[in-house]
């Protein structure tokens, strides 16, 4: 890739999400990772980042200013509590900020639903892995039906859930609920999180239930299939495992396998939010970088 035509990006946070994101950035033709920063206690993650060939710094988000060149995009893969503080500082740098923590600070984006919004907001929130896996389906169904209640239960393999996520379960639940309300217009929403220690590890799964309308199975399956196909365009391992109407309630289970990279197949939770981050960043890059004429 010609150095001049790709955007210079930085990653804040070197946990499970940050490192998988870095591998995806390295595969992108439109993004170059200039720096990975973390707090000093994530030294192990920084070593992984260095092993992937990326420059690293251990002094936290303020290390971003030390480089000679500015960054076009900063991905925040730290934690929800830190993000608000990071944003205060990042806002002054002028980069597009893509937040992978469930902080509820930025403008919430699900790429297949409102991806274009990322072109006009400076802080884009990717909600949560459960939000990315459920909102495309819920948005499609909410356009056709008027459910009175939506429930989403996510289950991720224990080994794929890092420390920041474990500390951020409250934010994960509340931010995902807020996003589902915003994208569907349904007020009564409940989100729950399971962490499974099963061996071999369980594939990331999102169980979705909707109540309060007359769901037609055939129509629902078509809508769900269309939404799933759109998501697969950027997260190839997204699949519908079950779709039915049970006792008058719609039930859809989506499973997400990681489709490429260094992470195991079951870690679809990492894959879907990082794939969403890449597609948002690449769309932004495409708008910024003049295309080479044929």
């Amino acid at each position, binding site marked *: 890739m010609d150095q001049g035509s790709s955007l210079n990006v930085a990653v804040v946070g070197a946990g499970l999400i940050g490192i998988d994101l870095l591998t995806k950035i390295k595969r992108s033709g439109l993004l170059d990772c200039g720096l990975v920063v973390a707090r000093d206690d994530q030294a192990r993650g920084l070593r992984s980042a260095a092993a992937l060939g990326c420059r690293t710094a251990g002094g936290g988000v303020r290390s971003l200013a030390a480089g000679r060149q500015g960054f076009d995009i900063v991905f925040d893969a730290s934690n929800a509590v830190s993000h608000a503080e990071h944003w205060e500082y990042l806002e002054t740098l002028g980069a597009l900020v893509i937040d992978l923590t469930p902080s509820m600070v930025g403008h919430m984006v699900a790429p297949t639903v409102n991806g274009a919004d990322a072109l006009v907001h400076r802080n884009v929130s990717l909600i949560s892995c459960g939000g990315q896996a459920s909102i495309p389906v819920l948005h499609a169904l909410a356009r056709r039906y008027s459910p009175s209640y939506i429930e989403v239960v996510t289950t991720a393999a224990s080994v794929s859930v890092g420390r920041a996520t474990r500390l951020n379960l409250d934010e994960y639940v509340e931010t995902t609920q807020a996003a589902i309300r915003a994208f569907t217009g349904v007020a009564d929403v409940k989100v729950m999180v399971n962490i499974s220690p099963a061996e071999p590890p*369980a594939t990331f799964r999102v169980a979705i239930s909707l109540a309060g309308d007359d769901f037609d199975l055939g129509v629902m399956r078509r809508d769900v299939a269309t939404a799933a196909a759109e998501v697969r365009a950027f997260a190839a*391992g997204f*699949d519908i*495992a079950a779709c039915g109407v*049970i006792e008058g309630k719609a039930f859809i289970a989506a499973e997400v396998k990681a489709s490429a990279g260094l992470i195991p197949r079951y870690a679809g939770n990492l894959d879907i939010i990082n794939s969403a981050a890449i597609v948002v960043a690449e769309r932004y890059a495409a708008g910024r970088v003049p295309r080479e004429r044929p």
Partner: protein
Amino acid sequence: MNQGTRESAEHARPVMIHDPTLRDGHHAVRHQLGRDQLRRYAAAADAARVPVVEIGHGNGLGASSLQVGRAALADGEMLTVVREQLSHSKMGVFMLPGWGTSRDLKEAIGHGADVVRIGAHCTEGDTTERHLNFLRDAGVEAHGVLLMSHMAAPGRLAEECRQLVGFGASAVGIFDSSGHYLPADVGERIAAIAAAVDVPVIFHGHNNLGMAVANSVAAARAGAKIIDGCARGFGAGAGNAQLEVLVPVLERSGFSTGIDLYALLDAADLAERELMPRPPTIDSVSVVSGLAGVFSGFKSRVLDIASRERVDPRDVFFELGRRQAVAGQEDLIVDVAMELSGREIKWPGPGKSEGARDRRVRRGFE
């Protein structure tokens, strides 16, 4: 304790009885207890000087849902009703991070909860850090408890408990959520935990294999200081350690509970009359769920779905055990039942499993 069960009372070792009848019992009645039921049992338990009366949805604060069943009353309503009845007993609540949030904890404390238990699957204790920290800072008595504890070895449970103490738990322990243990299993685990921590150790027994009281005595002998029991065993599946049996058996075994026997028996009679269609029994499905090591709270849902799909609920439980389902994964029941019925709602899709690749790349997390 009164009425002649005391043996050498001056040497009796104290254990604290924790009574989750109005929380765990909810599993047996699809979380449908009403105000009068809560009020009457809470008053009776208080009269018997039961130290802690725990209440709420069976899966804890914030858990009312389609996934595990919606409660008849909101958490706040239950707490308000019970609080008014308790003058001696403390009021306890239970919460699983990921199911409830700090918002639910604040609400419960606002309603006068004295003891808050934060639970996690037995290998995931670090999900409780935020909430135990919060309770410590708020000055609320906080217990850290590990669910489905048969799924981890004694050393791991001890390590997890030590971590819970570090987060701020003033008591820690294990739940036999599947009713899978035999007494020797319990003794070994409680001894390992008691050696690792300097706070009281908790044991919570289920009765799928008829061992709940025996396991609780084994726990007390191994050093547990807080033992859970429910009136008539009111609880998920085969039920819990039966409180009005547990207390006199502990007293005869050389432990003191401070509970009044006749008043406790009255509370248990009231519970049978007022709270449950029938007392829990170890039916065939409950034996299988205990053997399979599956959370007893799955029972009502498994029976419903197995009957709808015309499959044997025992097969469903064994398959859930094989998949190592943990509490909260009730959404798997439909998948398992449909798979067994051959009426899968799975779609053919891209990306079938690639076991060899998974084994190769899992090293990335180790």
